[in-house]
């Protein structure tokens, strides 16, 4: 009894929690609205969700303007510039995905309200992930963003592919998180602390890594390597992407991968700072992911699946800087963040084009893009730009992301870094080979099944497309915009 009375609520910084709380509120409102007028509410749902998400940006802005780092629960939950950048990114991604989803979900008459609610919940998990600086909170955040995602993957209840996608994603997900948890337990056992800073200081003490710590670190990293679908923990991705509803695929490919990256950043640069495992592990994983992802992508005939593999390969590119986290931590971190942001927009753009086209052709096959340039030049050009960005060809945004990688590698210097650089170079070439197949379909091929009907672009989808397009080009021509965020992240995380 005394103990109960003795309990005192830890101090809460409401302003710091404002974004999460707002998002939570929006989610709750959606549910309420759904419960009150269920059928009639369908129309307003997407609007509500979108507006709500935009509303979340407000507290993020205020926090950014305020600019002070805020820590809670003795450092388990921190709101610093890095966290804010990431939260903003997640929210914007979420908004674009809502725009992409509207017509898709409506036409396919699936559960609409739950869909948006779940998506918001998952986003909430991501926001938490951005702030978590503690094993427990990271774990909770991870599950909070994953569990709704499992359900969304299986959203097309009737569709066997969708079910299968859900099953695979779910099983692999929980399996991976179990492995990760085991690793966490080992880490906890070694260090006796769950907070990153504590872990870091403890691990720093023993000069050479013990087998136990290696095992622990490895398992934890694998848990998130799964999340970012790094080879060889990637197999779920293609199947899930193909089977899941395309907007969900986009969500998984962009948002949840970004979340995984955020976690990895915190773990690598703070918790396991300079652990012996880190660099060789990521060198290997990155090289494998890039190469295998690209090679398999060469053989894909389904556009979504192709994008899935391209996403895997892109993830590999993002992992490259981790391999030099030790020597060039600053530039590495910068490179990752920059890549993450640019990747988000170019990939979202590509997916929205796919959505737009498949709305007409009702097919995810590559051939369905045949002759797109002739009857929908606008879309074709947009897709070209996104693919060029993914391939890293100026002036579309991607080049700066790739540039960041090379920059980090060269900054680190040394044979290993140089070798990895060459691997990256070769992979950019391979990657273009399959992007070129899409380009070839759009530009060089006769119109698919000779049906010349123009593609009807709904306002929502159109605006999603425009956002992605503008962002991609802007980042390409004035990379300073995005580079700035990278620096912010560096400052707050590494305290440079």
């Amino acid at each position, binding site marked *: 009894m005394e103990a109960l009375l003795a309990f005192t609520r830890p101090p809460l910084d409401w302003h710091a929690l404002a974004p999460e709380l707002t998002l939570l509120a929006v989610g709750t409102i959606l549910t309420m609205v759904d419960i009150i007028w269920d059928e009639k509410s369908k129309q307003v749902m997407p609007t509500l969700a979108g507006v709500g998400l935009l509303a979340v940006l407000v507290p993020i802005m205020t926090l950014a303007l305020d600019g002070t780092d805020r820590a809670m629960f003795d450092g388990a939950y921190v709101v610093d510039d890095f966290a804010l950048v990431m939260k903003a990114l997640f929210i914007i991604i979420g908004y674009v995905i809502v725009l992409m989803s509207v017509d898709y979900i409506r036409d396919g008459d699936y559960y609409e309200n739950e869909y948006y609610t779940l998506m918001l919940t998952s986003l909430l998990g991501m926001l938490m992930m951005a702030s978590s600086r503690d094993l427990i909170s990271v774990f909770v955040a991870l599950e909070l963003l994953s569990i709704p995602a499992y359900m969304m993957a299986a959203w097309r209840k009737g569709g066997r592919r969708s079910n299968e996608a859900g*099953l*695979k994603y779910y*099983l*692999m997900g929980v*399996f*991976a998180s179990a*492995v990760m948890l085991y690793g966490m337990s080992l880490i906890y056992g070694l260090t006796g602390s769950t907070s990153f800073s504590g872990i870091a200081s403890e691990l720093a003490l023993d000069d*050479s*890594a013990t*087998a136990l710590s*290696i*095992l622990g670190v*490895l*398992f934890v990293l*694998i848990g998130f390597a*799964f999340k970012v679908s790094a080879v*060889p*923990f990637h*197999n*779920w991705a*293609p*199947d899930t992407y193909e089977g899941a509803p395309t907007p969900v695929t986009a969500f998984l490919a962009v948002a949840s991968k970004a979340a995984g990256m955020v976690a990895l950043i915190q773990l690598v640069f703070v918790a396991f700072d300079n652990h*012996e*495992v880190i660099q*060789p*592990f990521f060198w*290997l994983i990155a090289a494998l992911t890039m190469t*295998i992802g690209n*090679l*398999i*992508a*060469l*053989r894909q005939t389904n556009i979504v699946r192709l994008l899935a593999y391209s996403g895997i390969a892109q993830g590999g590119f993002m992992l490259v800087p981790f391999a030099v986290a030790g020597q060039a931590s600053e530039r590495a971190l910068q490179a990752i963040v920059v890549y993450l942001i640019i990747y988000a927009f170019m990939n979202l753009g590509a997916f929205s084009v796919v959505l737009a086209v498949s709305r007409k052709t009702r097919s995810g096959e590559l051939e369905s893009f045949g002759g797109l340039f002739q009857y929908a030049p606008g879309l074709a050009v947009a897709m070209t730009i996104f693919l060029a960005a993914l391939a890293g060809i100026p002036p579309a945004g991607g080049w700066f992301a790739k540039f960041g990688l090379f920059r980090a590698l060269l900054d680190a210097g040394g044979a290993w870094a140089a070798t990895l650089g060459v691997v990256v170079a070769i992979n950019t070439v*391979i990657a273009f*080979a399959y992007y070129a197949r899409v380009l070839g379909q759009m530009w060089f091929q006769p119109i698919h099944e000779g049906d010349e009907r123009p593609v009807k672009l709904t306002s929502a989808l159109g605006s999603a497309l425009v956002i992605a397009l503008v962002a991609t080009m802007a980042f390409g021509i004035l990379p300073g915009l995005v580079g700035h965020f990278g620096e912010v992240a560096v400052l707050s995380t590494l305290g440079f």
Partner: protein
Amino acid sequence: MWMLENAFLIPLIPALSFAVILFFGKRVIGSGRVHLIGITAVSLIWVLSLVAAFQWTQRVEHPSSDAIAQISVDDHGDDHGDDHGDDHGDDHGDDHGDDHGDDHGDDHGDDHGDDHGKAAMHSESGHGGGHGSALISPVVTSYSKWWSNGGVDFAIGTHVDGLTVLLLVVVASISLLVHIYSTEYVKGDRRYVHYYAFLSLFTAAMLFFVMAQNIVQLIVGWELVGVCSFGLIGHWWEEKPNTDAALKAFLTNRVGDIGLLVGMIVLWGTFGTFSIDAINTAISASPGTQHFALLVAACCLMAAVASKSGQFPLHTWLPDAMAGPTPVSALIHAATMVVAGVYMIARLYPVFYDGFSIGTSSINLMAFIGGFTALMGAGLAFAQWDIKKVLAYSTVSQLGYMVMALGVGAWTAAIFHLFTHAFFKACLFLGAGSVSHAAHHTFDMRKMGGLKKFMPHTYWTFVIATLALSGIFPFAGFWSKDEILLGAKVGQQSGYPLMLIFGCAVAFMTAAYMTRVVWYTFHGEYRGHGHPHESPKVMTVPLWILAGMALVGGAFNLPGPVLKPFGLEGLAHRVQTYAEPSVYLSGLGLSHPDPSLSMALIGLGLALSGIIVTYLYFWRNMGPKGLTERNKYAKAGYTFLENKYYLDYLYNDIIVASIKKPIANSANWFNQNVLDKAVNTAGESARDSGRWIYKWIDQGAIDGSVNAAARGADTSGEGLRTIQSGKVQNYGQLLFGAAAVLAIVFVIVI
């Protein structure tokens, strides 16, 4: 001396006429009248070149006053030169006079010339150099910066001296005559306009080449004349053989151009300048210092000479080049372009003289190539039935003669022969053209014969030219050939016996095969069809003019003794006096042999015997067959018949047997099946190796590897897809397996 300093005008005029003809020929002027432009332009430059020649003579006759001061310096060099050999007082003095004129001039002239030259370069002011050096140096160079590259200045300008003006006169005169002659010959041709355009262009290029101030200009002109020859050989390009011949000519010349480029570059690398004047002066100033570099350069340049002047072994294009219109053959492939090689040797004589150490050796590459070519060409001339081919080989042979002369150090002789040869060979070609014009455009001598009575003008001009070519007194050829033989005999420090033998043999053979031509073409019965007729005046007048030159051309370099009786010693050795650039040659210690009567008689004798023997041979063969019986009475011995028999025997068993059968035929066989085949197969093999490399290396190895890499990526992608089995538990296994493996590896490694 205005003309000498502004000589650049001379090539400019035909260049303009080329442009006018090409662009306004058809439209404005009308195809039929384009020749007017050409002829006007060429006659203009003809006048100009005569002016230039005259001014040059004035210049040599009256050396500028401030030069006299230097006499003492040069006396030694001279006396030395004149030491050996019997002395003719007046002649001697005469020489002195001239030599002073030139020699002292050069010492001065070069410095000044150079200073001014440099000044001109720096100030980039047009003819500063020219004016400066004009006063004192025998060589008039006037130039301005053309372009500069990496601190190296490339000049463009003119280098006028005796040799230049001599070539100017030759080119202009013959070009003019050919222009006139062509108006009839190619009348109504499908490409009348282009024909004249190219004639003008060629004239311009040739003059540009002749007046080149530096070796880069030499190369440029060299290539340009080559292209004109290409265009004119292929004038009737509808027929494949013509274009083949054109290509062959161009490519063979290109082969020589390798030598030209490399040799010139070596010269530049050695002396750091492009200026001909500077290079020559440098060598003659200190002979022997750069011997090796000069040897390399000379060898490379010999290749160029061989290709352009049809020397062994690159001569095979020249006979084929006869595919072009006959006037073109006369102008380009007999009189002017083909002597470009000879001209270049003469122009850069110090290079060769030092490089091949002509002064000291008694045999050297140039002399041998020249001599051998002369012999071979003469031999080949026997085996031809196409009159133009005979003349072509004769040209090859005569060019060999000139090269040989240069090889033995007889500079003047070579140039003099170049001069005379230009006229009588052009005359022969135009004569041949006239013949074929009459005899239905055939050149096959077997379809001719007996044309004498149909076309007397052509006949007589042809005969005169033949005599000149054969070297019969007093025709032009006699004098020049005589000097060459003399030069070969005396050489510089030691004679060139082998060359002398070659020379004599060629002298004999030339006379022989030319007589043969005359025989088959003009004598006997007409074997062609239709009624041949004399060509119109517009063709015969040029023939007569040329014949006239063939007759009196020798007068330009008569040896002193000949003139002595007439008290005209002052006119002796005009070519030598005016043309020879003693500026450069004196430094090399080049000496002139004194005329010798014996040598002249030997040469004449050889030529005459050649003619007589041949004549008798044909005369005898054409007689009634009774003659063969008379052979049987040989032993009975009618001296007259004996003589005849003797001659007959001589001809049949020695001349014919030794020349026509083995030498000529084998030479011909060798020529056609080895040299010519070699040239053609060179092209073929290049093409084949190209095909091979393209197929196997390029498409096979290199491109193949690239594509293989692509395929490899593709297939490996296919293979890797198998890990994506679709079974979720395999995914799990992979995941955990990878985790375990990594763990083990890291635990062990770290």
